[in-house]
């Protein structure tokens, strides 16, 4: 992983700084923020060595990552919540392609949110951050599979398994990230995301046992779970944007 990241930098840069840079990466465990930070650093080095450095000089400051993360969190929350609502099939009967597409875009947005906001958690829980990130990656991969399966099989069952896997991964990843940020950003958001995980898990469990009997008791826990999920990420996003706004605003 380390050598792959260093290879993103131009050869001339690596010849001068590569050794000492690698020494730092060996000493410091990498988190999602570090990954994003190093890739942006590599892009900056590539542009500078091509004489286009000026384009990177006047962008936002260091805290820009927090603002981007905040907006991405709100967008991702809206998309995944909508996917949960449509995926439940309680409101409208819809094929699995639309919810899978929503999870795909929502998970990508939540990945951006996670990378942006993890810069400010002072490295308290790097393992949980990575676990949350990989779960969201699973959600994006799984929903992509769901889209293709859904397109190939137009029945209501088409793409159901990848869709559910994507939903579960996105929800569990969100719960983990809630735990990670409970001190750095918002305790309320962390509690909402944990509550969302519990409620959605209960809702899905009850729904699956009710499925053959035609019952719908799971909805009682499922809808509040969706609300908690959306509210948790929304609060996290708003808190991140508030922290990053100019002092004069």
């Amino acid at each position, binding site marked *: 992983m380390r050598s792959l990241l260093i290879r993103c930098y131009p050869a001339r*840069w690596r010849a001068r700084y590569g*050794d*000492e840079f690698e*020494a*730092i990466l060996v000493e410091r465990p990498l988190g999602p*923020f570090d990954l994003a*930070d*190093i890739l942006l650093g590599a892009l900056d080095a590539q542009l500078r060595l091509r004489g286009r450095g000026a384009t*990177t000089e006047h962008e936002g400051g260091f805290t820009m990552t927090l603002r981007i993360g905040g907006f991405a969190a709100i967008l991702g929350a809206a998309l995944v919540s909508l996917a949960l609502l449509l995926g439940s099939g309680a409101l409208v009967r819809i094929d699995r392609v639309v919810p899978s597409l929503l999870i795909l875009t929502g998970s990508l947005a939540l990945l951006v949110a996670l990378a942006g906001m993890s810069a400010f958690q002072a490295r308290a829980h790097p393992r949980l951050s990575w676990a949350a990130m990989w779960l969201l990656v699973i959600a994006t991969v799984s929903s992509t599979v769901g889209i293709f399966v859904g397109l190939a099989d137009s029945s209501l069952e088409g793409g159901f398994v990848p869709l559910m896997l994507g939903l579960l991964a996105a929800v569990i990843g969100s719960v983990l990230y809630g735990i990670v940020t409970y001190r750095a950003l918002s305790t309320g958001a962390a509690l909402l995301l944990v509550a969302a995980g519990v409620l959605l898990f209960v809702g899905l469990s009850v729904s699956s046992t009710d499925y053959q009997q035609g019952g719908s008791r799971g909805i009682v826990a499922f809808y509040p779970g969706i609300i908690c999920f959306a509210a948790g990420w929304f609060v996290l996003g708003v808190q991140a944007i508030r922290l990053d706004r100019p002092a004069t605003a």
Partner: protein
Amino acid sequence: MEPKPPEFGRFAEPSLLILTSLSDGPKHGYAIMQDVEQGTGRPMGAGTLYAALVRLEEQGLVEPLTPVDRRRPYRLTAIGASNLAEQLRGLSDFAQQGLRQLGETQP
């Protein structure tokens, strides 16, 4: 005509943090990152550190020393120390002005 102070764009804040970290003696990259994290409560990524460090070195504000076990320490140059003092004085004036304004506007 006074020489134009170097511009670091979006790396202005990390550059200031690095210069401040080096003000009490030479440090290698990892030590700078730890120093900044302890001082500000926020981590500085390795990508940001080196993007700023390269600019500081190009401007002659810091200089590399001989590496020890692949870790290369950096130290402030005389221009770097002068630039840091100037920036800190500017920030101090700005902070005092802000505090005065807050005093005037607070009930």
